[in-house]
């Protein structure tokens, strides 16, 4: 399937512009996180989505906040932005502010706004697939399914989890409008795909679940817009679960503590080593979808907003153990009884 040819017809300009904005916003935020980490301002891990912004943003931009469900994973800064996550949520989570959705109780990529349809991931890979399926089943039971989509991303490594398998299979049985994106970035931490699976292409799994499979070059901005936008549209139109496999390369270490030196130079130099943001800008300019000035403006605005969010989060109070209620229950049980 070559999707790029039909891109400009199918993916609307609004969608493509939103996608690019989210990508650049994510990149700028993550560059900032990286410096904060290196300056010792962040305790705990910092995980970046460098190189995966096109895939992530294509998904996030195709979803409708307030209606759809999105369960972002490790490298979905861009998708989160596209789905409407404010910078301050990210800054607060990483900097441990007592304000914001996580209140310092959980951090970094584990943030979310579940009441608004953006789930707060747990670390255990693959776990979100069935949870999103459950959200969608609920919507069906509530008579609110029409035109709703649920989506999540996993990595190549996460496809080896039983949770991924059980969740996708269940969604297929229930014919739920679930979009699962596999960002096959060729490594799970240090582990190359040759130690992760033995099939030729992970998209070959789609047929075995009875779902549609889509392949895309995850570094190709417009192809991502097209293929992922199309997959979301198919799910929305009642086509059941969609499995999209995007091939790309993680352009950072696994986390900022990791230099990723195990990634061979040949892989870095290969076609997936290119930066999807460079590709995006080139494609946008070539096709006259955006001008240099617009791009510069988006970058500039993002830089200012990121700075502001980080500055704000840094000034906010951190959690105070003496004010903390230490309650794991919503129910008003006498906590001494627990």
């Amino acid at each position, binding site marked *: 399937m070559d999707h790029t040819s039909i891109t400009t017809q199918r993916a609307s300009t609004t969608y493509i512009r939103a996608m690019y904005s989210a990508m650049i916003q994510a990149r700028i935020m993550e560059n900032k996180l990286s410096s904060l980490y290196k300056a010792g301002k962040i305790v705990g891990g910092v995980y970046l989505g460098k190189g995966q912004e096109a895939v992530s943003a294509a998904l996030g931009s195709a979803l409708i906040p307030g209606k759809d469900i999105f369960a972002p994973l490790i490298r979905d800064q861009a998708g989160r932005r596209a789905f409407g996550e404010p910078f301050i949520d990210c800054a607060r989570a990483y900097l441990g502010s007592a304000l914001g959705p996580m209140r310092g109780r959980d951090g970094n990529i584990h943030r979310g706004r579940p009441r608004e349809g953006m789930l707060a991931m747990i670390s255990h890979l693959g776990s979100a697939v069935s949870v999103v399926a459950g959200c969608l089943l609920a919507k069906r039971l509530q008579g609110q399914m029409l035109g709703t989509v649920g989506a999540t991303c996993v990595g190549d490594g996460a496809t080896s989890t039983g949770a991924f398998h059980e*969740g996708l299979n269940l969604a297929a049985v229930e014919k739920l409008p679930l979009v699962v994106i596999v960002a096959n970035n060729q490594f799970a931490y240090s582990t190359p795909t040759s130690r992760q699976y033995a099939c030729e292409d992970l998209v070959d799994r789609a047929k075995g679940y009875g779902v549609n499979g889509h392949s895309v070059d995850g570094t190709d901005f417009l192809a991502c817009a097209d293929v992922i936008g199309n997959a979301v549209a198919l799910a929305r139109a009642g086509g059941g679960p969609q499995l999209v496999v995007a091939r790309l390369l993680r352009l950072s270490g696994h986390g900022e503590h990791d230099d990723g030196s195990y990634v061979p130079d040949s892989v870095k130099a290969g076609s997936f080593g290119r930066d999807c943001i460079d590709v995006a800008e080139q494609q946008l300019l070539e096709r006259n979808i955006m001008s240099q000035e617009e791009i510069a403006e988006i970058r500039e605005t993002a830089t200012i907003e990121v700075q502001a969010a980080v500055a704000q989060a840094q000034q906010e109070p951190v959690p105070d153990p003496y004010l903390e209620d230490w309650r794991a229950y919503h129910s008003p049980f006498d906590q001494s*009884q627990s």
Partner: protein
Amino acid sequence: MSVTYIDAIREAQETLLREDPRVFLYGQDIAAFGGAFKATKGLAEMFPDRVLDAPISEDAMAGLAIGAALQGMRPIIEMQFADFSSIAFNQIVNHAATHFYRTGMPVPITVRLPSGGTAGSGPFHSQSMEAIYAHYPGVVVVTPATVADAYSMLIESVKLEDPVIFCEHKFLYRWLKAKSFQGDGLPIGKARITRMGRHATVVTYSAMVHEAVRAAERLQKESGWEIEVVDLRSVKPLDIDTVLASVARTGRLLALGEAFPWGGVTAEVVSRVVADGFHLLEAPPMRLNSRDTPVPYHPKLWAAHRPTPESICDSLRKLLSY
């Protein structure tokens, strides 16, 4: 006319489905078939959209429940046997249990675990997993011992905002009968004095409540000892006040459970009692659990693996003679 413990579980689910459109049931073979134990018999006919057969995917079943709960539903998941919830362990303890603390948004799911031993069921269809789940913050673990509790606590579990592990004892399913589902209205978190006594307190839960009462009756007949039996009803939260009040009256404690001996409910009960009621005790508090092996298949081994009226009487005689 009489009703059984399994009738109570079925009836509670029917009531919930009828009265609350947020409720739905999900589990293996629970729809047309009515479940391995018939706990959902006829419900799929009455509520065809809300009683659904699941694939053999306990992890995804729990995950689906979590997602549905986040969207405002009140799922009840049936594990075919408690033992198979080991596959759903991660979703329950890491996803459901942590969610309220992490995000402020509770996850009201109810996971039904057909629990405990019956003759010939063997190592993988007999387990009592209450201690495993109760160890984790954020999980409510209930262990009804009566028909009325099976009914009212299941209804209450589904109404709670927190995830509930509902440990229903398979041995009680058809054996335990009552006149009606009507009980004393005690809420989850409150223990019950099942039998009053003066000489020693047995703190227990689930099927062992009945074995304790048998042992108490035997000791009363044999030697006039009056044994108090406390039914915890829920093991997390655990109503230590009722337990302490009983121990204050009797001065002697036997914590009794059917689960494996290391850790678990009996250790938690003893530790709480000695922490807050050390001065009340006239004898060392004792524990009686199953043996420290997998639950054996053969009925003769099984009967000796779990506590019995005989072994409970033995423990109580030791306790009383201190």
